[in-house]
């Protein structure tokens, strides 16, 4: 029988606070794990941890009666325990015995056990918090609409709140700060019955939390992270630290730290020592010491200087300017107007203040101006023309084992190059440098992107507009607005001769000149270049062992080169042990998917042994709650991806989408509780959701492109208006479904909630794989199709 209980008002507030802490902790955990390991490993660990929600549903299904009996004590106690867990887990994970290193997972078996332990550790805070939420839903299921509202609105607020915390505190301090919130929520939810026991627990937890705040754990980075390896250098020390939603920035100095990517072997002077800048433990860029009086610049001796060797460049645009190296180079080559675009405001603040002495106040130089905005957003708003548009360097020396395969790189899509092309003056050029890798991937993909963009713009002889120059390690492509002149071609030859570089693409180039100074044992590279420049490139795309098709805004994963059908061949050539190090990022997502799927299946099936296998009702419940779990997360993920380009900032994109979706869904949930016989309208609601999502799939990109030039406040409002209607509707099916189950099959309520939790986690991995393989539009289509599952269940139930 379904219990009818009156919800104490304080419980809504308590539930909302707990939800704030869960989302905030999840985001902070993502940052912390990205610092000590890499983003995709953070994603994997957190995905497993979030199965705590699904496990809570399973636990509640099995121990429902006992938990309901003890609910007055358990609810606050569980909240407080989750707070203790949040304060403690990161410290425990840093203990050497438990600490894992993702690079060593594939070479030392002990790290697999350490990874499993890490999963269990981070699982705890989410499990206990989810138990508290689930128990609240179960006990007061008659008010599920309002409770779900509190849960969703709290979650939305958590996303915003953590952004503020990240600006104010160091990463290792934030978990303890957040852990106060669930303890407070537990105290608020105290009833007279539970006061004594829970008060003791609250006191103990506050002691632990205060200790954690005053003594935050030391974050131990993987020994293979750039920062950790740099700190092994003699006299290396961290000079500055600044936390922000863009990442935890640290600067390092050492007399052994230098920077000169692909330096010409003809350079015989001393290399300047630099300050290194890192974000989340990964190399971000150098801060090169330069006085305005310096005549020469070390980058003059790299392939990066090609554009300047061809012609004078008066107006220079440096996209993703980072630590200003490209701008320093432009100054040294006499550019009169240099505009740098850099979205990372924390980095800019450092460049302007603490680091300005090293660069001789680069940002205050009369020729230099800076825009703190995402490069693509800038390009869509800007109407100026430039003599040189400089892209940031692609890849890294020695590669990064594909750890950034799933990083959206909107600056390296065909669409991006097209926008840059339109900003070029008559003699203007775009310059892009990347590291040579083997098997060759990045240079070929960069070239195919350039060539296809030109073709799309009506240019059928791309070889007349492109030149490329190769050193022992790097290759620079220069794309000109008008055909390369014979004088410029001559200058390219002279530059190569002076520097011992080799031209790879140049009008009138002979084959022998392509490898005079830097020979490639596998000179098929030149054949591939020629095929890409010709009409044969489709054949190369399909036959080559790696994905070298251009990235697009719909699939902006430039560094994703994997082709599944190539795995057997690569394993044969390089050995199976080497495979993970080719494209680790993508493999991790696939591995995550399988891990989550196996665990989720167990969590979903287990309760059935306790609640019974009631034939078709079980399947309907399964499809209904799976569909809404899948669909909701697909929509959230794909909207965040699409709005990253729109807002030019992943932080704003995530904050606006998550907050808008959760708040509007919360309102939808609340309204659903006020409508009598809401069940009668469920089909209409679901059909409306499906239609809107299909419309999104067809039109959303065009709508966003049309409005991308609006000022930021207007964009936020516009985004909210776009997201609100479907989110409002999407907030209804869950509480309506739970209410239905409460009336007809109360035992299934926690199970349904667990299904929703499990499937939500699975959907994040699935959405990522679909986005990589098919593009964002298809993720939206699958979201729409997912909502057909609850629709079919609803229709079946009516029948």
């Amino acid at each position, binding site marked *: 029988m379904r219990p009818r209980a009156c919800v104490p008002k304080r419980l809504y507030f308590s539930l909302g606070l707990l939800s704030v802490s869960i989302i905030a902790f999840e985001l902070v955990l993502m940052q912390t794990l990205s610092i000590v390991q890499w983003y995709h490993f953070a994603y994997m660990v957190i995905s497993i941890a979030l199965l705590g929600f699904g496990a809570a549903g399973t636990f509640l299904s099995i121990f429902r009666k006992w938990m309901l009996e003890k609910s007055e004590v358990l609810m606050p106690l569980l909240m407080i325990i989750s707070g203790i867990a949040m304060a403690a887990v990161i410290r425990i994970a840093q203990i050497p015995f438990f600490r894992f290193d993702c*690079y060593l997972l594939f*070479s*030392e078996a*002990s790290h697999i056990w350490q990874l499993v332990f890490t999963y269990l550790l981070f699982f705890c805070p989410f499990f206990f918090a989810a138990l508290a939420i689930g128990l609240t839903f179960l006990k007061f299921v008659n008010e599920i609409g309002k409770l779900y509202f509190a849960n969703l609105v709290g979650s939305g607020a958590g996303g915003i709140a953590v952004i503020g915390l990240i600006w104010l505190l160091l990463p290792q301090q934030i978990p303890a700060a957040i852990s106060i919130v669930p303890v407070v929520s537990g105290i608020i939810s105290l009833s007279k019955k539970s006061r004594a026991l829970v008060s003791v627990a609250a006191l103990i937890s506050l002691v632990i939390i205060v200790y954690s705040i005053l003594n935050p754990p030391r974050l131990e980075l*993987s*020994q*293979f*992270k750039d920062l950790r*390896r740099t700190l*092994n*250098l*003699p006299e290396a020390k961290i000079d500055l630290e600044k936390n922000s939603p863009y990442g935890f920035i640290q600067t390092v100095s050492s*007399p*052994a730290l*230098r*920077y*000169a*990517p*692909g*330096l010409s*072997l*003809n*350079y*015989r*002077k*001393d*290399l300047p020592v630099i300050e290194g800048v890192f974000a989340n433990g990964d190399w971000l860029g150098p801060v090169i010491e330069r006085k305005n009086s310096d005549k020469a610049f070390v980058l003059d001796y790299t392939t990066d200087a090609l554009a300047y060797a061809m012609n004078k460049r008066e107006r220079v645009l440096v996209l993703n300017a980072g630590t200003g190296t490209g701008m320093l180079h432009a100054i040294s080559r006499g550019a009169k107007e240099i505009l740098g675009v850099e979205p990372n405001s924390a980095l800019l603040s450092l460049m302007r203040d603490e680091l300005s002495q090293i660069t001789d106040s680069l940002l205050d130089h009369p020729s230099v101006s800076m825009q703190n905005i995402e490069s693509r957003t800038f390009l869509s708003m800007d109407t100026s023309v430039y003599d040189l548009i400089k892209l940031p360097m692609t890849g890294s*020396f*020695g*590669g*990064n*084992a594909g750890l950034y395969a799933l990083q959206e790189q909107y600056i390296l899509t065909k669409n991006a190059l097209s926008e840059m092309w339109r900003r070029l003056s008559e003699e203007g050029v775009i310059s892009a440098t990347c590291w*040579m*890798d*083997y*098997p*060759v991937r990045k240079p070929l993909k960069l070239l195919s992107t350039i060539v296809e963009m030109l073709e799309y713009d009506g240019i059928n002889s791309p070889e007349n507009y492109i030149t490329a120059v190769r050193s*022992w*390690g790097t290759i620079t492509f220069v794309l000109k607005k008008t055909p390369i002149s014979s004088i410029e071609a001559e200058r390219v030859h002279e530059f190569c001769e002076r520097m*011992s570089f080799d031209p790879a693409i140049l009008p009138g180039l002979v084959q022998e000149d392509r490898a005079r*100074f*830097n*020979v*490639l*044992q*596998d000179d*098929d590279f030149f054949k591939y270049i020629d095929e890409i420049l010709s009409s044969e490139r489709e054949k*190369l795309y*399909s*036959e*080559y*062992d790696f994905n070298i098709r251009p990235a697009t805004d719909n699939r902006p994963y430039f560094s994703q080169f994997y082709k599944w059908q190539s795995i057997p*061949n690569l394993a044969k*050539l*390089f*050995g199976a*042990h*080497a495979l993970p*190090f*080719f494209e680790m990022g993508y493999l991790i997502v696939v591995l995550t998917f399988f891990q989550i799927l196996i665990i989720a299946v167990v969590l979903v099936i287990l309760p059935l042994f306790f609640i019974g296998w009631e034939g078709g009702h079980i399947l309907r419940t399964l499809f209904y709650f799976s569909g809404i779990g899948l669909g909701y997360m697909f929509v959230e993920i794909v909207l965040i991806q699409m709005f990253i380009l729109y807002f030019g900032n992943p932080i704003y994109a995530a904050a606006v989408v998550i907050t808008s979706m959760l708040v509007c869904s919360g309102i939808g949930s609340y309204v659903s509780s006020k409508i009598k016989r809401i069940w009668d309208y469920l089909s209409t609601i679901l059909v409306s959701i499906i239609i809107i999502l299909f419309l999104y799939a067809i039109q959303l990109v065009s709508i966003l492109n049309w409005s991308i030039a609006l000022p930021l406040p207007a964009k936020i409002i516009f985004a909210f208006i776009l997201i609100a209607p479907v989110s409002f509707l999407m907030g209804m099916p869950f509480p309506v479904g739970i209410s239905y189950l409460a009336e007809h099959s109360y035992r299934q309520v926690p199970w349904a909630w667990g299904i929703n939790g499990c499937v939500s986690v699975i959907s994040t991995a699935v959405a990522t794989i679909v986005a990589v393989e098919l593009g964002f539009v298809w993720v939206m289509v699958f979201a729409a199709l997912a909502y057909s599952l609850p629709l079919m269940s609803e229709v079946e139930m009516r029948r």
Partner: protein
Amino acid sequence: MLALILSLTFAIAGVPSENDCFIRQRQTMVKTQIEARGIEDKATLQSMSTVKRHLFVPEKIKNSAYDDRPLPIGYGQTISQPYIVAYMTEIIQPKPDSRVLEIGTGSGYQAAVLAQIVKEVYTIEIIQELGRSATARLKDLGYKNIHTKIADGYHGWETKSPFDAIIVTAAAEYIPPPLIEQLKDGGRMVIPVGSPFLIQTLMLVEKKGDNIKTTSLMPVRFVPFRRSN
């Protein structure tokens, strides 16, 4: 009683010692991983058969020492796959009177392999802890012609230059100009390029007068990366 005597006999004579195990593994390594992949230089093969690689890896992964893969040795460094070590040794064309500089001592294994062949090996390690442990290890193993230094490898070892060959295992985004200077005319420098657990190319630098030429070598047996469908 007879059973006891028999089992003791087996215990003494029949169970292979740890040394025997590693000897067999080393021989298998040379045969299947190195010779089979086209390494022909006799001195290199002899050296790879002699140097006890298992003494150069951390104790807990000793049993994997002769596997066909790189292994971690701490501080974000690895000991290269045996085949890569052999390839780099062969490619610098070491001779009995050669003087070789190594940048990045690491475990000391590459230096030990070279020391079996050449006259003198000078090896520099920038990470103090690694440098110290490698120095101690090489001394314990009795290598008299290996000279170690803990320093920034950027500057090379000017007082001992020029060198017939240079191996730069701790590769960076640039080739330090002092190393080019310290390479003899006609000398060879080799630099493995790739992520720590996946070396993809070996870059050979050859100096002839004022001319410097580089060649990207593919240690993986060359097969094109395209298949006809």
